């Protein structure tokens, strides 16, 4: 049976990785051992990857003797979704997670010279982590289990909600980000084990970290975008526990990238950087644990039993506690160069670490509080948007102000910050004007919105000015920092405007009737039944006309999928840069009219554009010429 070949390959790979781990810590500095380790790791990865390719092949060719494939795939699915069904549930997605982890290790193994002092130990650490997760996979969450001797002729259907391109790509992108941080983690741990403070692990880890960060940013953005157009109620972020456990590594990773710059440039904040490196990967692992342990109620989490959760907790707990133990042990030998000067760039980044740290702490608090509360008081409590907004808005705004003033600061020296410098004054005035104008025209009463707008505008105008000065006067400006922080400002005002301007209403409307909402005329043209291969649908047609005589057709649907009888709503969205017109249909009332939900979402595209722009800044960094 072909599946057994795949199964066998994975077991062999596990054995090889175990060997790599053992060899890595035997004799250091021996080039022969380094080459041996490197080669063995590559072989291990090739076996593992072959195993995965065979598995994909089995899914694509509808081999339903494999239990997991039978449970999650179906002959009627397009090939693309047969492949993506592999990561639609726990066992398969865990397999994918491991493949990506091993792949990152393989790239690192290939691209880093064997003479690099930390290489073998880093590979060794990655290998041990792989062995741990592979054991978890093979022993408790085996994707290779078979249904024999009578394999079903067809599989169960995949949840229709998952048959969507964005949702197919979202987990892989996210996982690539999550597991990518194993590289800086492994480098940091290797550094600690090696014990030589002069080794610049930070330089070794840098580009890998940025790439992982880019993937994580894009992964989260994709998830947000998907949720918006698929789930039908027009939100883009819900502070759902599972979203939060993706946000935490991202926050820590962003702080980590900043701290990394300081460590590389000025050999300072090295302790913070190591701690952050451990934290990012730990938070990624923690996220994996939370989603698969069944401890948190969420539509997003994989259905699981607490026993698996305990196993995972044990393994992840061991990694985290071991790393922290090593960190605490080697604490004294991590030497930074001198002290950080006041008001230097380093000091600002140092303070930035505190802000990001507090955000991570707050999210963790929000996620775990309901669990602790229920344990202590035997009562349930929910922590949602009101809490997170109340914490995030003040901290982010204050951090932006610090960022604004840090633009003039210099590396490794104290300068008197030009509080009345030209760029500062000009951007402050422009920001004040823009905020005042917005507040007046839109009639904003919310203080948090006004303050957020001001902070965002401040960054936007300041960086626009700095970029202009840099182009005109050929003055140096760090382009990645400029683009990334500009995007941050854009993100903040997009979120603020979206929050204050967007409106929605549920109306009932009969065929051939018109209703007016805000500046739109909505004409209900018709509604009819549509038959498709795996679902039936009720498809409505609306002609929307706005004040400028632009008109367009929107066709929201309600679908009923055959295999599970599941009913989904398909949204119809008219996208422009300024706003989305968002329509869904609800139920039919007794008088024959239909309930229609209409939303006007302002500047929502800008939220995702800012996030992509931020990733782009990271991309610029990767492809820039090497800076010393």
């Amino acid at each position, binding site marked *: 049976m072909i599946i057994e070949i795949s199964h066998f390959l994975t077991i062999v790979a596990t054995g090889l990785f175990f060997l790599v781990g053992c060899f890595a810590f035997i004799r250091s500095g021996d080039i022969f051992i380094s080459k041996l380790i490197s080669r063995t790791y590559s072989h291990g990865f090739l076996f593992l990857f072959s195993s995965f390719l065979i598995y994909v092949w089995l899914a694509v060719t509808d081999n339903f003797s494999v239990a997991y494939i039978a449970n999650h795939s179906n002959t009627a699915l397009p090939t693309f979704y047969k492949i993506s069904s592999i990561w639609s549930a726990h066992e398969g997605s865990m397999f994918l997670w491991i493949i990506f982890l091993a792949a990152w290790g393989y790239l690192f193994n290939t691209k880093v010279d064997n003479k690099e002092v930390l290489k073998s130990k880093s590979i060794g650490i990655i290998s041990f982590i792989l062995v741990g997760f592979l054991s978890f996979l093979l022993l408790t969450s085996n994707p290779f289990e078979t249904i024999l001797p009578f394999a079903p002729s067809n599989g169960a259907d995949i949840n229709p909600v998952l048959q969507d391109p964005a949702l197919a790509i979202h987990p892989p992108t996210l996982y690539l980000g999550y597991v990518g941080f194993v590289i800086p983690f492994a480098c940091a741990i290797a550094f600690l084990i090696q014990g030589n403070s002069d080794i610049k692990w930070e330089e070794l880890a840098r580009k890998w970290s940025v790439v992982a960060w880019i993937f994580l940013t894009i992964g989260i953005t994709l998830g947000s975008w998907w949720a918006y157009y698929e*789930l*039908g*109620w027009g*939100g883009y972020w*819900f502070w*759902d*526990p599972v979203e939060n456990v993706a946000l935490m590594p991202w926050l820590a990773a962003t702080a980590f990238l900043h701290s990394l710059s300081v460590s590389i440039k000025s050999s300072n904040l090295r302790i913070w950087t190591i701690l952050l490196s451990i934290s990012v990967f730990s938070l990624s692992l923690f996220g994996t644990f939370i989603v698969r342990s069944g401890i948190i*109620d*969420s*539509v*997003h989490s994989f259905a699981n039993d607490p026993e698996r959760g305990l196993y995972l907790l044990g393994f992840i707990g061991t990694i985290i506690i071991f790393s922290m133990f090593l960190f605490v042990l080697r604490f004294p030998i991590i030497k930074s160069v001198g002290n*950080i000067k*006041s008001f230097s760039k380093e000091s600002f980044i*140092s*303070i930035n670490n*505190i*802000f990001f*740290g*507090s955000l991570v*702490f*707050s999210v963790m*608090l*929000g996620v775990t*509080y*309901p669990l602790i*509360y229920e344990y202590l*008081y035997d*009562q*349930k*409590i*929910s*922590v*949602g*948007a*009101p*809490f997170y907004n*109340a*914490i995030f808005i003040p*901290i982010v705004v204050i951090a932006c102000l610090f960022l604004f003033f840090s633009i003039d600061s210099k590396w490794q020296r104290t300068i008197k910050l030009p509080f009345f410098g030209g760029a500062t004054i000009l951007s402050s005035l422009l920001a004040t004007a823009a905020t005042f104008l917005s507040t007046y025209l839109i009639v904003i009463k919310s203080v948090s919105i006004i303050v957020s707008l001001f902070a965002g505008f401040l960054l936007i105008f300041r960086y626009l000015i700095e970029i202009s000065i840099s182009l005109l006067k050929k003055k140096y400006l760090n382009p990645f920092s400029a683009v990334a922080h500009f995007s941050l400002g854009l993100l903040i005002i997009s979120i603020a405007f979206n929050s204050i301007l967007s*409106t*929605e*209403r*549920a*109306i*009932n*409307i009969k065929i051939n009737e018109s*209703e*007016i909402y805000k*500046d739109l*005329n909505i004409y209900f043209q018709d509604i009819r039944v549509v038959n498709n291969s795996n679902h039936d649908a009720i498809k409505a047609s609306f002609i929307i*006309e706005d*004040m400028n*005589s632009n008109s367009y057709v929107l066709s929201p649907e309600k679908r009923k999928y055959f295999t599970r009888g599941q009913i989904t709503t398909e949204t119809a969205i008219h996208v422009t840069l300024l706003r989305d017109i968002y329509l869904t249909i*609800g*139920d039919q009332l007794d008088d024959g009219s239909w*309930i229609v939900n209409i939303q006007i979402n302002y500047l929502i595209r800008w939220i995702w554009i800012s996030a992509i722009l931020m990733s782009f800044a990271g991309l610029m960094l990767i492809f820039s010429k090497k800076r010393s």
Partner: protein
Amino acid sequence: MKYILSISVLLSCFAFSAMIYEFDNEADEIRFNDLIKEIRCPKCTSGSLSSSNAPVSEDLKKRIAEMINQGKSNAEIKEYVAKTFGKESLYDPQFQQDTFLLWFGPVIFIFVAFLLFFLRRKT
């Protein structure tokens, strides 16, 4: 067409019978939309009333709309929801004695962090 459209927009009273949840003015409608985002759907694993069309969610939304039209405050409405479906139905963990650590946790964290930051600078 444009002329007719603008006239009808001007003339249309806010409360017209096509609204499922009827309100007397726009502020109430906005209050309603904001409130239902903060209240959990009683029957769903997770998600707000705004995102759910389960029958009990629809009933609760109608009740909340009624209460808004009766002039009840957000606090009174949240109290009703908490009393009927449990405190966990509110995404806003009310600021009480047992949520003190939750709300003040971040503040304490920042305070302690900055304290340590400045103390270390002195040495």
